[in-house]
């Protein structure tokens, strides 16, 4: 369901530790980042009843069945190229033609507020 490329798991753990996240549940979700072409992203979230769940290297990943059906297996990579540090998400069935082009961070949301890693 979810594959972690080399360095990704370590980067996720480091990011969550830096932000002081106590229960690291990371959701793979569809995000709209302005205009066309939504993309896959990572967000710290709670587990919902209907979620599909996978534990990898001590991290818990969740994804909704609808999104899993849409995109298939998701690969999470991490890049630390200068000027392009962050997570790259690609999927078996790409969400859009820009799959894998952009990098993103892991978002954290306060309730009823915009997240601070937008």
């Amino acid at each position, binding site marked *: 369901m979810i594959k972690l490329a080399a360095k990704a798991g370590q980067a996720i753990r480091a990011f969550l530790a830096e932000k002081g996240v106590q229960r690291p549940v990371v959701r793979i979700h569809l995000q*709209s*980042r302005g*205009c066309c072409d939504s*993309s896959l992203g990572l967000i710290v979230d709670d587990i919902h009843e209907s979620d599909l769940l996978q534990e990898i290297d001590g991290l818990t990943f969740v994804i909704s069945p*609808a999104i899993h059906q849409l995109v298939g297996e998701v690969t999470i990579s991490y890049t630390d190229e200068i000027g392009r540090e962050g997570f790259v998400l690609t999927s078996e069935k790409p969400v859009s*033609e*820009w799959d894998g*082009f952009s990098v993103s961070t892991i978002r954290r949301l306060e309730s009823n507020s915009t997240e601070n890693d937008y």
Partner: protein
Amino acid sequence: MDKYKLFIDGEFVDARDGRTFVSIDPGNELPIATVAQAGKVDAEAAIQAARRAFEKGDWSGLSPAGRAEKIYNFADEIIKRGLRLALTECMDAGQIIDFCKTTPGLQAAQMRNLAYFAADKFPWQEEIPVSGNPFCPGRDYLRREPIGVCVGIIPWNFPMVMAFWKITQAIIMGNTVVLKPASATPLSALIIAEAAKAAGIPKGVINVIPGPGGELGKVLCTHPDVDKISFTGSTEVGREIMKMASDTVKKVTLELGGKSANIILDDADMNLAVEGSVLGTFFHQGQICESGTRILVQSKIYDEFISKFKKRTEALRVGYQLLTSSHIGPLVSAAQLATVDQYVKIGKKEGAEILTGGKRVEVEGIKGGFYYAPTVFVNVNNKMRIAQEEIFGPVVCVIKFDSDEEAVAIANDSIYGLGGSVFSGNNDRAERMARNVRTGTMWINAYHAFGDFCPFGGYKQSGIGKELGQAGLEEYTNTKRVHVAAWADPESNLYMNILSDRNRVDSFQYYIPTKVIAGHGMLASICKEVVDLGCKRAMIMTDPGVVKAGLSKLAQNGLASLYVGVFDQIAQDTDIETVDAAVDLALSLKADCIVSVGGGSVIDTAKAVCVVLKNGGRANDHITGWNRLKEPQTPHIVIPTTSGTGSEVTSAAVIKHKGADRKLFILDPHIMPNVAILDPRFTMTLPPSLTATTAMDAMTHAVEAMCTITPNEISNGMALRAIRLIKENLPLAVADGRNEKARLNLQVAATMAGWAFTIASVGLAHAMAHTIGSQHNVPHGAACGLILPKVMRFNVDTCTDNLVQIAQALGVNIFNMDKRQAALAAADAIEELMKSVGHPMTLREFNIPEESLESLSLHAAGDSCTLFNARQVNDPSEILALYKQIY
């Protein structure tokens, strides 16, 4: 099923690796065409074709009018393919047919409009009439040139419109283009390419390569042969493109996401507001960057609006896009549908309430398709994700507000700033709000109203740059400034002299337009001069001393019916506040001519007034303006009442500026007065002390004009004659103030000295005099006289020859003196003359505290007159030593 190929270098070709993909109809999920899929090799080929075409010049070398002719042919080929384009777009992108049937015709018209504008009105070349650098005279102009190879990357929501925007603007401005349409909607761009080929657009000018952005993006955005990228799409991808383009510093314009606010005020026409909101939100299923996806409704009308908006929304028909009965077609893809549905779930979880919609729709008779019901959320807080993140579907958030200020604050509480609107019955109120919303386009009582000549583009994370209009076309050019030096003599180039040991500038300009009328009773000429200047309403400017002497009245009588008023509150050292006060009076009197009657301060105030009257604003807008005026100023006639300033013929006005703590200048040939009337009656009441100090002002002008880095034969001739006239006539005028001939000769001397320094400048003595004048109110003439001999000795080794001539003009017998001795004797002669006429000889007489000398030196070192002194002045301690000599 139709097959489409890549369009590279004027030919339709398969992808190099043979790959293809299928384009589907989002209304029924059925395939409608196979399309060649470009890979990196094809992108490289397209870029090279575009580069070759640009360099070859068949297109970029055409004149804008030549390109326009070909674009008109291109537009005609588009019209011929209009129906095919409309139907293809409808099926490929899911646009309702009622809209896309209009697109080919409108876009063909846009091509013609912009091509004609580029040929007829666009400022390809612009003269810069005033460069703002007085030290580098010459002709300056701007050229706007094509950039080169432009990459256009477009989204799937308006593929045909976006293809036209990117292709047309790029090639109209002489560029070549590589267009990457969205993989979901590639077909209309390839039909446009057919039209371009049929129209005879040269090979390589337009290239179209559909293919995955993730694969092609890096090639297109980093290739060294690409000069500009124009991207419309998501902020996330736009960010990456900007980063990639930065490595080779490409020009980038981005049109990205939005979360625009549609503000409904309590005085809006309700029906208009409801219809406008429906259009603003749900047109093209909300898949538009500038959609009004937050509707802000004023609390007073909230309930009524919600009720009507719900009813109107529910009347929208969701259906297959080719049916003319459909208002809302499908979303473009399954992924987009899933995204919209996810955000609706998020909205519910955040506590917003669904007023209507919020679910997928099955369209009768259609199997499949990506249809979603128009959805309205109410009870939305602007901090919710559904209010902050662009959903890009038929989903709107309605937010209640109380005051206009609150609406603006909510509208601006977004990382985006692309569009927006205000619905109100009061245009003034609406425009005030529009000004305060930080966004690139604001519509009032409308939405989605575009225009070919109206630039479009966002603020903040909605993008950079503009499309359409002159601003959009300028994005497709580079701007070059060309400077053609007016002076060809390297030894006269002040900048080149910095890197040499030269201390002279031999080339010069001689421009003295002031008409001088001199002689007994010449005031009589003033009426004729006013009328010849085309004026009828002359305001006198003067000072209280001149009024008291009866001279203002004399001038007023001379003007007769042409006189309209007098400003007589000019102090010894004028300042910008005085200029503004005089301007206000002149405006109230509707004066069209200024007559200054007085000394340097009055004349300089009048010059500044003429500038402000002509150009508007306040004095502070124009102070330190060097050679930036482009035309004659308000007419100015001068009647000097002193024989010192020379300001009646000079291009400088010296004004005290409290903020800068020194005197500043307006320096411009356009402020030279039109006429100077030297009537000796106006100087006869000058007391002996003022006669002496003002004459020393003139003497300093003449001497310094010969001791700068820019003396020349014309200025030297005038200066030497002025020095002799002052030497011979000053003692006579001091002894007998009624000696009219002596008075006239001193006036003429002052004018000639003014001419001399206008051509050749002044130096250190003036820098030091300006400083003690502005800091301690020492009269300018007295200050000049005190300092002049010391500065002459300071300069003795750098302008020896000219000082020798000055000594001779002063009547010094230089027989048996070597040059240096003779030069020093000139300074001695000045001091003797000063003593003989009772001129002050020390600074102490003006109650200047000794401890202030050091700070005076620092200020004087910063006066621009020091730049022209024959001997370089770099060290304030040298100036301090001179001040101490006269203390």
